[in-house]
């Protein structure tokens, strides 16, 4: 799906070489942490790994984990593309709140919030608002050349105010079974959010990797001016990416808020922008733009939601949960650090003189000929 998977290790190499190859892959450590965490949860709480079929759909802790990963995955998808262009979108959490506020307020005022047509309109409205927010961000960044951090912070700060205006300061709650399905329903036994997130993932991956868009993004992220001179419409492309991020954030908001059907302007999506950035980084994409790895987002999102769950499964006191998460994430980041690896390699090389050249971490050549 994405070019993140390394070429298979040539057979015949020694175990050490395989190990080096595998452990050098950007996703190795996050993946290892994820598997270890899940196994540890299984050991700590028998039945954690069980997946059963209940009322015709999958049920179990692992299914919950998948469902909870949907929101961070959707956010991280958009964030990853934005980061690839060398930008950042801090407004995704606020956009979640606005989109949900718009959808639920529409449903609340609709004659029949239970009808499928009304629900579809509500969803489209929510997504459209997300696109609008993204378009605003894009215009600020690509059109006016404002620093992305600042440009998107405007919406991040003002967004909750906008959501509050829409809900008139209340927590709007609605009863609409079709809308609720988005968050807590099932498609062929699989939780709907998982289906939605994976569908979005596939669409984005195909669009980005089967067309030249992905390469444009990377080239803009590596050198905006050079790619412009090479003929990439960097402004338009950058703008488009923020719109995509806005729509995905809106989708995440709807998926996140649908199970409880409550548009809580103050809390929906609070700090989720940081979750999204974390997922992108765990997935191996660097914040300075350029090369990006979509496949890593799947691992990052799963790791994040597994961490959330593990602190309860391990029965840790609530006060220590942030510390536990911090330790795991720091450990993963440190283990995956290329600099640390280079240092270790340097020492080993001093020991014996047979190590091959280090693989290039980041391809810098922008092969753009658009």
């Amino acid at each position: 799906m994405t070019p993140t998977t390394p070429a298979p290790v040539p057979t015949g190499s020694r175990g050490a070489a395989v190990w080096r190859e595998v452990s050098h892959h950007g996703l190795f450590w996050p993946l290892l942490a994820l598997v270890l965490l899940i196994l540890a949860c299984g050991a700590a709480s028998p039945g954690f790994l069980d997946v059963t079929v209940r009322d015709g759909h999958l049920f179990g802790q692992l299914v919950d984990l998948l469902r909870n990963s949907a929101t961070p995955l959707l956010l991280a998808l958009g964030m990853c593309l934005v980061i690839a262009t060398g930008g950042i979108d801090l407004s995704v959490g606020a956009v979640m709140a606005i989109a949900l506020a718009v959808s639920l307020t529409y449903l609340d005022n609709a004659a029949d919030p239970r009808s499928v047509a009304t629900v579809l309109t509500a969803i489209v409205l929510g997504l459209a608002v997300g696109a609008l927010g993204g378009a605003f961000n894009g215009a600020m960044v690509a059109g006016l050349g404002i620093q992305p951090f600042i440009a998107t912070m405007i919406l991040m700060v003002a967004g909750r105010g906008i959501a509050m205006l829409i809900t008139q300061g209340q927590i709007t709650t609605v009863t609409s079974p079709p809308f609720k399905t988005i968050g807590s329903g099932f498609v062929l036994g699989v939780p709907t959010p998982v289906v939605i997130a994976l569908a979005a993932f596939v669409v984005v991956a195909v669009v980005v990797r089967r067309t030249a868009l992905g390469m444009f993004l990377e080239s803009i992220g590596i050198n905006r001016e050079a790619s412009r001179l090479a003929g990439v419409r960097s402004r338009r492309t950058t703008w488009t990416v923020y719109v995509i991020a806005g729509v995905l954030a809106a989708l995440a908001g709807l998926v996140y808020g649908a199970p409880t059907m409550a548009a809580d302007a103050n809390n929906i999506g609070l700090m989720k922008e940081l979750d999204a950035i974390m997922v992108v980084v765990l997935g191996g994409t660097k914040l300075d733009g350029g090369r990006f790895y979509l496949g890593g987002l799947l691992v990052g999102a799963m790791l994040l939601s597994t961490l959330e769950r593990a602190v309860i499964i391990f029965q840790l006191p609530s006060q220590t949960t942030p510390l536990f998460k911090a330790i795991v994430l720091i450990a993963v980041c440190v283990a995956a650090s290329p600099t640390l690896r280079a240092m270790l390699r340097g020492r080993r090389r001093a020991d014996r003189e047979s190590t091959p050249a280090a693989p290039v971490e980041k391809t810098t050549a922008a092969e753009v000929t658009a």
Partner: protein
Amino acid sequence: MKGINRARTGMAGVVATFTILALAACGGGSDTSGDGGDGEDGSGDVIRVGFSQLGAESGWRTANTESVKESLSEENGFDLTFVDAQQKQENQIKALRDFVAQDVDVIAFSPVIETGWDEVLQEIKDSGIPVVLVDRTVDTTVDDPFVTWIGADFKQEGTTAGEWVAENAPDAKIFELQGTLGSGAQVDREEGFGEVVGDQVIGKASGNFTRAEGKTAVEAALQAYPDMTMIFTHNDDMGLGAIEAIEAAGKVPGKDIQIVSVDGVRDGLQALVDKKFNYVVECNPVFGDQLAELIKKVYDGEDVPKETIVIDEAFDQTITQETVDARAY
């Protein structure tokens, strides 16, 4: 608005602790009996009151504001200057200085944060205007900075909930769904509850006062504590999320897993009517009438207690649909 100071805390925020103030702690309440409680002194005196509300961050606060406005009305003998600080201390300080300039009779305010009031409180003190603190308190070096304080007693709410459990479910194995860690409502409700039935609590986790996170926490807790029979939640919203998780696990909320909650928002009371909640302790925002009475006493120079605790009710499953429908929030 709450986001400003968080925007800069950096990318590692995912793993960092953030203690949100007790902003969204209380969810709501009704506003049906706002103007009771004021005496009829017969005097034509109008009491000029300056009230600075901290903002409108939750339904609870909105209900509180409406109750204050309704009770401190002209008919009740008040001339109220109401200023919304929009959660900014500088706005609030400015409003307080304006009140001094206008030489109002009594100043009442809900401080947005605890510290940084020394200068302005000293100015007010020098001007001789009595101060009534509402809902929250201040930490200041000024001697005797306020005449009296009125607000909710979170700890008492926890104790009330604990007493119900001790009486009705002494064998329950309780999972405690905490609010945002470090917020006043979380700390005090946990303490009050723990003093009564602390040894029955088998596990705790935070749901940050929100439905979605309450749901996720309970999903995990159902796995981690298979023998749990009751959930004590620090607010209704998390309890509503818990219902979702319990039902998804094929259990019956209110029966297989009992739920005891604090807040008394309409949705929470509705869950009580639907027999999904078992007990709800109210966190009452509608204390405008009590405040009005207090301000009158302060104005007349009567002795007032240093603290006035807002009267909280508690409901069990005998609650009627009418009570729920009467709730404004």
